[in-house]
């Protein structure tokens, strides 16, 4: 067994152990914890980056290491690192729990890394639960008046029920095919869907994955968790966790496609409803994070659109967009957590006067928002266009039309954010000063959003190679 194949996971396991030890200490050293975490996660990014072009199978072929998984692992590592960069001021979490915050973030990262490599049902299940359970705990870690635990409990139960469904569905699939390996299951899908057991099995199984991505109707946790969780935690859920979920879906969607036309139609409907519902409800939100939650539901629909094309182009689009989504969503959350430095929930109206309080942040906000809205030249636009292109190529004309119309609807609430940031001013609000690293981060993010939006070629080529690996 090549250690490099399992390198990232091992590294983060070690990192988790470090933090596990740190949680056992008596006295609290917040700065030290933070510095260790940041340093380790930076190394983690490096390690994952080094392992980018590894290839091979592990654990009786239940675990596949290929470019696809490694790209997502890199994204996850990056996501973790980015989240940690904005965790320098964890006002929302009590100091004595901060070490645990790092610990659970690390474990959930491990879970997700395993998730993107799993090609066997049990492995998928275990990895999924590992990543979820850590998040279940992270959400109520926030200090607050009770909405955090409420969010946590909802997250937990919706998650538990979904994974229960999934497991029940997996058991049917296992029964019908006699195997837990995706490779073995795939060829048998065709006859499987003609039996009720196959349909129910597949449907229930997908529930768990849709939950992760917050696709309608498994989206109910998202608004509550986004609002209730600490800003940094939500940032992680909204960025890295989404990327992992997309990766998982990409692996599994082949199953759905093999199940025939009806199944595809069902997925199309779910995609459309997700997009539309997410965008419409987002319009009426006042809380910034809650709005972003609905936006994430809408984006889940977009991802689904790309996934269900089951073409190389579609996969390229989805991979590209997943990476893009990580960056642009992070940008917005970064602004959010910088503005709400005391860890409170940010109302959209509280962005008032941002252009004066911090021009740099307001620029980042504009870029992030425009990217989310799919306005060029940003990675968001390019990614969305790639997905739409592939969907059109696959013949989903109306899906694209609806998607494009949704692109307009979503602009409405995104522009409301800009309106608050650019037009309303509240002279009472103080200027926000940013440290040098934060400023650099802002510039870097801006460069990525614009640069890769305008010159997507390298990423697309990478995504192409990755898509080849998974298809």
């Amino acid at each position: 067994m090549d250690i490099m194949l399992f390198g990232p996971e091992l590294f983060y396991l070690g990192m988790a152990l470090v933090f596990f030890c740190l949680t056992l200490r008596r006295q609290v050293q917040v700065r030290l914890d933070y510095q260790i975490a940041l340093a380790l996660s930076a190394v983690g990014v490096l390690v994952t980056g080094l392992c980018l072009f590894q290839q091979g199978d592990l654990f009786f072929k239940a675990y596949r290491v290929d470019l696809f998984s490694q790209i997502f692992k890199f994204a996850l590592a990056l996501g973790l690192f980015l989240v940690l960069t904005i965790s320098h001021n964890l006002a929302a979490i009590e100091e004595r729990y901060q070490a645990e915050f790092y610990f659970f973030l690390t474990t959930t990262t491990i879970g997700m890394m395993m998730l993107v490599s799993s090609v066997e049902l049990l492995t998928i299940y275990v990895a999924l639960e590992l990543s979820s359970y850590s998040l279940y705990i992270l959400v109520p870690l926030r200090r607050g008046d009770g909405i955090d635990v409420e969010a946590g409990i909802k997250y937990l139960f919706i998650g538990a029920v979904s994974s229960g469904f999934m497991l029940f569905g997996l058991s049917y699939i296992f029964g019908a095919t006699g195997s837990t390996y995706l490779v073995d299951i795939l060829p048998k899908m065709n006859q499987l869907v003609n039996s009720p057991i196959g349909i129910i099995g597949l449907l229930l199984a997908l529930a768990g994955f849709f939950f992760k991505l917050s696709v309608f109707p498994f989206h109910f946790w998202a608004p509550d968790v986004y609002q209730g969780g600490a800003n940094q935690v939500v940032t992680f859920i909204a960025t890295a966790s989404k990327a992992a979920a997309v990766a998982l879906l990409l692996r599994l969607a082949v199953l759905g496609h093999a199940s025939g036309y009806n199944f595809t139609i069902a997925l199309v409907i779910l995609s459309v409803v997700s997009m539309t519902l997410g965008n419409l409800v987002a319009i009426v939100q006042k809380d910034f994070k809650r709005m972003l939650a609905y936006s994430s539901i809408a984006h889940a629909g977009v991802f689904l659109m790309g996934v269900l094309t089951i073409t190389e182009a579609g996969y390229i689009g989805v991979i590209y967009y997943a990476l893009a989504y990580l960056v642009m969503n992070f940008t917005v959350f970064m602004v959010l957590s910088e503005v709400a430095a005391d860890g409170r929930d940010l109302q959209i109206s509280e962005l008032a006067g941002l252009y004066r309080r911090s021009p740099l942040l307001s620029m980042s906000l504009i870029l992030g928002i425009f990217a989310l809205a799919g306005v060029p030249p940003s990675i968001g636009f390019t990614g969305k266009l790639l997905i739409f292109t592939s969907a059109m190529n696959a013949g989903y004309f109306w899906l694209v039309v609806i998607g494009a119309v949704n692109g307009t609807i979503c602009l409405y609430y995104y522009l409301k954010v800009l309106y608050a940031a650019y037009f309303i001013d509240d002279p009472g609000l103080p200027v926000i000063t940013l440290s040098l690293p934060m400023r650099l981060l802002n510039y870097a993010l801006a460069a990525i959003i614009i640069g890769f939006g305008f010159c997507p070629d390298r990423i697309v080529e990478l995504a192409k190679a990755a898509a080849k690996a998974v298809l």
Partner: protein
Amino acid sequence: MLLSPFVGLLVLLCLKNEQKFLIRAVSVVASGISLALSIFTFVAYDKGLGGLQFVEKYEWVQTFGITYFVGVEGLNAPMLLLTGIVIFTGCLTMWELEDRTKEYFIWMMALVTGVFGVFMSYDMFFFFLFYEIAVVPMYILILVWGSTRKEYAAMKLTLYLMAGSGLIIPGILLLYASSGLNTFNMLLLHGANFSPWVQKVAFILLFFGFGVLAAVWPLHTWSPVGHVAAPTAVSMLHAGVLMKLGSFAILRVGMYLLPEGFQYWANLMMILATAGIVYGVFVGLAQTDLKYVIGYSSVSHMGIVCLGLATGTIDGLNGAVFQMFAHGIMTALFFSSVGYIYDRTHTRDIHELGGFSKIMPVASAFFITAALCGAGVPGMASFWAELLVFVAAVQVFPVAGLLAIAALVLGALFALRVVQSTFFNEPNPKFVHFEDVSPFLGIPRMILIGTLLFFGFFPQIMVSMIKSSVVPFLQGM
């Protein structure tokens, strides 16, 4: 040419907020360079040779067949010239801007980059990309520097235009997907055999999508509202250049790639265009806000453009493109004059204004010139354009053509009504103390008038330029 506003933008980013003079100077220089470049391409374009010139082409995303492909031909050279002129004059016009100067010019430059990009792109991906770049900064420009119900207007305008994009995306992608060529390159797509269904569906999607920006009736209501709210230079750019993006795109993407679709929908185009011409004039007659009046005149004039396009003849297309150019300059002149007056009096109600010929003879002369141009008085560029369009229209759609010509009477009434109540009669004593346009601020307006007159007296320069591309264009159809 694409680069100069972009470089200007980058330089502006690096400047400090306080260096207002430098900011203005940089933007004026940047826009001046683009003006110079656009004049250069206009002059240097070899009409005898025709076709695409000054081509730049790079593979961009091979997997999806995206190429960075820009060039100049007879159709877009006038548009580039128009953009160059309007942006240069627009930057000069806004010289006095004090509020958040830097951001303002940054967004302006972004917008202009987009506009140049649209006119020059021959790849649908970049075409659309630049199209959106040109549209989106409007939101912030109107929101921050606008007036009169600006929140509503900015939101409405942006959403409306984005809804248009919502139609364009499926349209473009449908072309891309159904061609089977895996390319966004328009010249290559031109050769693709689209099925009749694709032709019809894609054309109507693109027509309405781009038609929103071209203020095709009845998708025009964003335009008066938007113009009213926008700051002067933005109105200039918007009415002068951005609306042309829409009609240009209908020509370049819609008609060029989908000739059968165009044939199928030509009658619809004609009806909407004629409706717009007549309707715009009538509604404009009832307006009392100067900018509303101009906004509706734009609706009417863009109807003429659309009518010209709908004819699908050489004369019609020549006229349409010429009209785009002429109307762009004319509207820019309109808005810059109104903007000047509004900046000082803070009213645009034509009943409240009055006697401005006495108070600001120069400013009024600018406006009156624009109004006369709008009324189609010969000697101005727009006369020729209208002549061409009308001849073509009567030839192809006699009824629509005659109706459109008849609307010219009202056009005159329309223009003169405003001129009379704003500039003639006794001056309103409230405004008597205001100063006339200073020579410096007069420069941009003089440039605009000069352009109008120049092409009014020498239309052949423009027409032969346009024609050099229109003829092969129509042969290709």
